[in-house]
């Protein structure tokens, strides 16, 4: 095929994409009911995400039931609204009460809560909202523009690469949440991995560390662990204090200045690209994306900004929030194009689509023409609604969470119990939550960070299965061949080794430099 005909084909393809986008935009705008369901989904998502421990996945799973009576388009708009709202909502309780609504909000919690205690909770949330808005845009636009390239990169991730990526996620999280002693962060992550091994092994069905308990055969769910570690242990830590820390009720400035946004534009685009690519990799979720972008952001930050990292940095919030929101768009790509969900929440979207007789996969554009574009336009509209609703809800949220902790903390208890129970309607999960809370409190007392533990519980099954699959594939292959043939894996391996090396040997030096 000559270059002239290739150019003509490309421009025809571009025209077709533009026409499809225009057509789907008109379909949505001409149907106010679709906009109302999307707005309802966004509002529910923000409120749900803001509740301590109630995760995006849980919201998506539980709210699928509400879409049964809706049309296909309305159901998709509603679920996209919930997804977008929930991812941002996690930042609200993270910033204001130091309990992340969702696991990917942990970096935002580390930075945002420090700012909130200084009376800058409004601006921290405003920055998170703007970053989320920007992140969604970056994710959607990058995806529309680079679908083939992103898909190609995502398909390079096989078992070995997935294992290394997940392991790296835990290592990064350990380093970042325990800046002065990364080894304590890694120990916490490794304990999380051990917890994730409990239950029936996914390959042979052998019981591991179940102590003969029937309930443990199903494994330990990450949501009860998350609620226990961040909910119950926080209540145990804060409530008995004589003068518990208080969030100032004065919201102050909410929207970041244009100058501030301009300053962090570079970090935003970098984190957006990271979030989209990680979202497009099946199995790697917003958790990995936000921690990865957070770590890269710290490494790339100026010396002045680096000092604020971990103690209340706006740039850090921008990195984490842009990445986890860009992940929403990214995770839709393998879900729709391959039928492999990018993360657990995207799996819920998949379930909602299947409920409406939409079979996703490589033939989606043939069997459901225009659906991909409808979903992307839906995401853009949900993004606008998220921005508006989040701004409207900031002041009430700050006022609510600035109530005395002695009043607020006991009222979180019934939410924790119900949240843990509702995951699988099994009271055993409430016991898991309680024990996790007590262990979390003890770990905190001994200076071990809790975030790597939760991330490892989530990523543990991925690490385990992918390592064993990769080893089986490599059984008769030489080490040199593996390193040479799997270049992406080799790069990831080097990054993992560097992360540990940096944590053990170099971190101390750079901290000394910063202190100087």
């Amino acid at each position, binding site marked *: 095929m000559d270059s002239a005909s290739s150019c003509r084909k490309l421009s025809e393809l571009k025209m077709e994409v533009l026409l499809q986008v225009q057509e789907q935009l008109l379909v949505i705008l001409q149907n106010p009911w679709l906009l109302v369901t999307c707005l309802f989904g966004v509002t529910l998502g923000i409120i749900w995400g803001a509740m301590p421990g109630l995760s995006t996945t849980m919201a998506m799973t539980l709210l699928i039931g509400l879409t049964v009576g809706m049309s296909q388009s309305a159901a998709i708009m509603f679920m996209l609204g919930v997804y977008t709202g929930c991812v941002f909502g996690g930042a609200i309780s993270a910033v204001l009460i130091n309990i992340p609504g969702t696991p990917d909000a942990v970096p935002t919690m580390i930075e945002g809560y420090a700012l909130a205690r200084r009376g800058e909770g409004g601006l921290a949330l405003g920055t998170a909202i703007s970053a989320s808005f920007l992140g969604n845009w970056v994710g959607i636009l990058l995806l529309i523009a680079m679908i083939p390239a992103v898909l190609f990169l995502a398909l390079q991730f096989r078992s070995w690469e997935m294992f290394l990526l997940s392991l790296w996620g835990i290592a990064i999280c350990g380093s970042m949440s325990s800046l002065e*002693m990364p080894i304590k962060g890694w120990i916490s992550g490794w304990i999380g991995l051990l917890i994730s091994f409990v239950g029936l092994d996914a390959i042979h069905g052998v019981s591991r560390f179940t102590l003969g308990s029937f309930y443990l055969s199903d494994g330990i769910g990450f949501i009860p662990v998350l609620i226990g570690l961040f909910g119950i242990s926080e209540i145990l830590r804060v409530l008995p204090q004589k003068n518990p820390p208080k969030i100032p009720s004065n919201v102050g400035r909410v929207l970041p200045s244009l100058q501030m946004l301009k300053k962090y534009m570079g970090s935003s685009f970098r984190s957006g690209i990271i979030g989209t690519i990680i979202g497009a990799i099946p199995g790697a979720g917003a958790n990995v994306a936000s921690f990865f972008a957070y770590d890269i952001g710290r490494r790339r930050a100026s010396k002045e900004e680096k000092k604020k990292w971990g103690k209340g940095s706006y740039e850090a919030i921008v990195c984490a929030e842009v990445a986890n929101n860009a992940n929403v768009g990214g995770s839709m790509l393998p879900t729709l194009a391959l039928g492999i969900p990018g993360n657990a929440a995207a799996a819920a979207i998949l379930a909602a689509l299947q409920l409406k007789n939409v079979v996703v996969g490589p033939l989606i554009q043939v069997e459901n023409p225009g659906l991909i574009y409808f979903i992307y336009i839906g995401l853009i509209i949900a993004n606008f609604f998220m921005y508006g609703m989040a701004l409207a809800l900031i002041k009430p949220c700050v006022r609510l969470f600035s109530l005395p902790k002695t009043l607020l903390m006991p009222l979180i208890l019934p939410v924790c119990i119900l949240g843990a129970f509702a995951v699988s309607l099994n009271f055993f999960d*409430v016991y898991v939550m309680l024990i996790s809370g007590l262990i979390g409190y003890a770990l905190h007392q001994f200076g071990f960070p809790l975030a790597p533990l939760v991330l490892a519980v989530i990523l543990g099954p991925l690490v385990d299965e992918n390592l064993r699959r990769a080893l089986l594939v490599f059984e008769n292959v030489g080490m040199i061949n593996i390193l040479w043939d799997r270049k992406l894996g080799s790069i990831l391996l080097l990054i993992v080794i560097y992360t540990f090396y940096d944590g053990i040997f170099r971190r101390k030096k750079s901290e000394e430099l910063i202190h100087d």
Partner: protein
Amino acid sequence: MFSSDKTKSDDIGCTEEEVATRKNLVGAAMTGLLAILTMVFSLRLAVPGSIYTAPGLLPFIVGFTLFLMALMLGVQAIRAGGLTKPGAFFVGSSITNWSEEGRRRLMLAALIVTYVLLVAFVNFNWRIPGAPFGFEIGSYEVISVIMVTWILYLFWKAPIMRCFTITVAVVEFLAIIFRYGFGILMPETF
């Protein structure tokens, strides 16, 4: 992680840094023990297929590397003087600190455990006759109202009626949202 100021944090003359170092030493010992137990239990797991897919493979690797990490943490703590003044690690930790705050924390933990156990073992459901939507009150709401009111009264120190009113409003709102909004079964159903 820990403050490096040299203020005395206890009555036997330990600084906060010294207490943190001793905590690291205890943490390393406990982690080391956990790592050894993991390795032992991993080796006892069955190997149905190839060694590469053995269920105990990754747990053993994780146990072994965890042991190395515990060793490194322990060595760091010993180098920082963790073995001097043995027993000082108990000081400054609110787990063993029987100050007023420690006692309040223990009481709170006991109340939370009691709350969870009551929700687990007491099950009943009251249908309110004539109420719309078949409105009902379950043991979860009743126990939550009693326990949360009690905790609020002890820690918030407001008049009991105010604690009760706020708790009823919050618990009922929550129960209604979950039961009727999301259609989730409540704990007493099981």
